[in-house]
């Protein structure tokens, strides 16, 4: 118990403002911020006052800091020879208030970009961003499915992790950088046994609140998808999908991109950048000559779901859905992740009964 106490610190809520202002003195601090109409976004803050401590997942996930929407990869000058410079743009910053779903999302991106061949743009930027997590004591809304994918409780991927225990935050210090933030801002007190008990009680309480959100146990999901490739559910989604790509843009684990060129008007210099791109839009799988390997929206929706629940399981042994619910919240055609999974389960069960009879 004594050892555990060392890993924790207390921040009185009255001191949150001081903590954020001191932190923002040396680094850019990004925190959840209300944009109205129950929309939130990570924005730069200089004090604690305007931070939305109780927020539903931000419109865009913190992915945008690790893998910006537009990112210059190289620039060149054309003269007698051609000078090419490969670059990475980065910014020192602290992300405050990252929920466990988004921490899981960042962990997924870490796996993808550190897998060989490594992506050095991502890997160079990553260490410049410190992460302060914030626990959800309850569900954010009906779209979340974080328990299903084991993301309702913290499991690493942060420097500090805040849990709201009423008048103060219980803060888990997870890294050297986290400890330095605690030391330098001089806003924290040592945590005692009582608070450890309170934290344990909260987690116990959460186990009662967070229950599997769909009608299938997570361990059976790979098997469900194994047999769902020809499911009618995809046709049904295909009929509704508008192919706008919103779901992949807001997804914390979607990392597909396009690479494009920007050339000066005199054509003497240019740069190459990558930008987020979506498997949901029509030209994504097109090749020269116009052949498209995922021409139907149903196939594109299916691809999205398989990239969350099957393909990454084969490669990284984990789901690439973090249960944040963003895709469901943002979909203009009301395509809901939980409904899709339930529909697949229902179809499979019906088939089993039919085969049985």
């Amino acid at each position, binding site marked *: 118990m004594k050892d555990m106490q060392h890993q924790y610190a207390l921040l009185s809520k009255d001191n949150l403002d001081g903590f954020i202002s001191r932190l923002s003195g040396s680094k850019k601090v990004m925190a959840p911020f209300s944009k109205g109409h129950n929309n939130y976004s990570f924005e730069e803050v200089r004090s604690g006052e305007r931070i939305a401590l109780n927020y539903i997942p931000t419109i865009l996930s913190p992915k945008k800091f690790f893998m910006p929407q537009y990112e210059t990869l190289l620039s060149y000058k054309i003269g007698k020879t051609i000078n*090419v410079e490969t670059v990475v743009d980065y910014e020192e910053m602290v992300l405050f208030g990252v929920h466990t779903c988004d921490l899981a999302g960042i962990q997924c991106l870490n796996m*993808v970009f550190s897998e060989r*061949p490594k*992506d050095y*743009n991502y890997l160079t930027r990553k260490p410049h961003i410190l992460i302060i997590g914030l626990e959800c004591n309850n569900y954010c809304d009906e779209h979340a499915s974080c328990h299903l994918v084991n993301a309702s409780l913290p499991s690493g991927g942060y420097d500090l992790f805040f849990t709201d225990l009423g008048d103060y935050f219980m803060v888990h210090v997870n890294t050297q950088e986290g400890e330095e933030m605690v030391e330098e801002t001089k806003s924290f007190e040592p945590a005692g046994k009582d608070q450890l008990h309170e934290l344990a009680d909260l987690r116990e309480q959460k186990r009662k609140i967070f229950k599997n959100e769909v009608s299938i146990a997570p361990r059976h999901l790979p098997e469900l998808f194994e047999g769902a*490739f020809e499911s009618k559910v995809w046709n049904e989604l295909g009929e509704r999908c508008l192919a706008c790509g919103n779901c992949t843009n807001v997804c914390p684990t979607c990392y597909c991109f396009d690479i494009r060129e920007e050339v000066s008007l005199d054509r003497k210099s240019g740069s190459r950048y990558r930008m987020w791109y979506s*498997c949901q839009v029509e030209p994504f799988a097109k090749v*020269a000559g116009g*052949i498209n*390997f995922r021409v139907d929206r149903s196939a594109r929706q299916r691809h999205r779901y398989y990239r969350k629940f099957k393909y990454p399981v084969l490669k990284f042994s984990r789901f690439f859905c973090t249960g944040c619910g963003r895709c469901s919240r943002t979909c203009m055609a009301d395509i809901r992740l939980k409904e899709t999974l339930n529909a697949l389960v229902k179809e499979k069960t019906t088939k089993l009964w039919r085969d049985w009879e």
Partner: protein
Amino acid sequence: MERLGIKETKFAVKIAKILKTKRMTEQEKLFEIALEGGESLDYEPGQFIMITVFGAGEIPISLTSAPTNRLSFEICVRAVGKVTNALHTLEAGDLVGIRGPYGKGFPIRILEGNDLLIVAGGLGIAPLRSLISYVLENRRDFGKVHILLGCKSPQDMLFVDELNLWDRRMDVHYECTVDKGAPDWAGNVGVITTLIPGVDLEPERTFAVVVGPPVMYKYVIRELLAKNIPERQILVSFERHMKCGIGKCGRCQMQNLYVCQDGPVFNYDDIKHLSEAL
């Protein structure tokens, strides 16, 4: 925002010089290219590169030369898009950028000692020429070699001089057909599948290597299976519009496979169930 120069990034391009260009048809041009500083592009038949036309963009193109010439390499490019059209305006002496080579090429070590049935449709001859040149340069390492070529019309035929050489070689069985003949065309007319039934082959010791337009595979493979060539001995190579070449961007993904890393050459047995493959 800080900007840092990074060297180890996979997006770095090497500057290369076009040594020679040759117009092959109305649409296709052949480029011989060398990396600056005499560096060798260490590649295998069937692999591809990402080529930059500065001011236009970057595209994936398969290598068409055999890796035996270490000082330069060749690509055969059809002008269909912005970058390929820009590339066609370049001439000897112009500079381009190169990344790669990428992907898994034809499994030479596995093919050695076996008979080969090479089936090329249209521009599919480009990557296959890399293999064919390698095989002919190391002819005694392989058994019988059959080359079947199909293209739209006699005017669309690529590498005509070489085709004539292959035709004349005693140690190669070469046949070609065109979809649509011409007044001076005395050869076969018909789709490529019509050539397969007549090939005299021993299926258990034959590897078929098929590259062509997407629509071709299904029909060619049906004929190959009818000849009793085992599924594991059918190799295909796929065209996708890769953007990164390092298995991240997702553009070339077919189900769980990335064509840029897991392919572009695949064993038919491994991909026959993938709906997004053929």
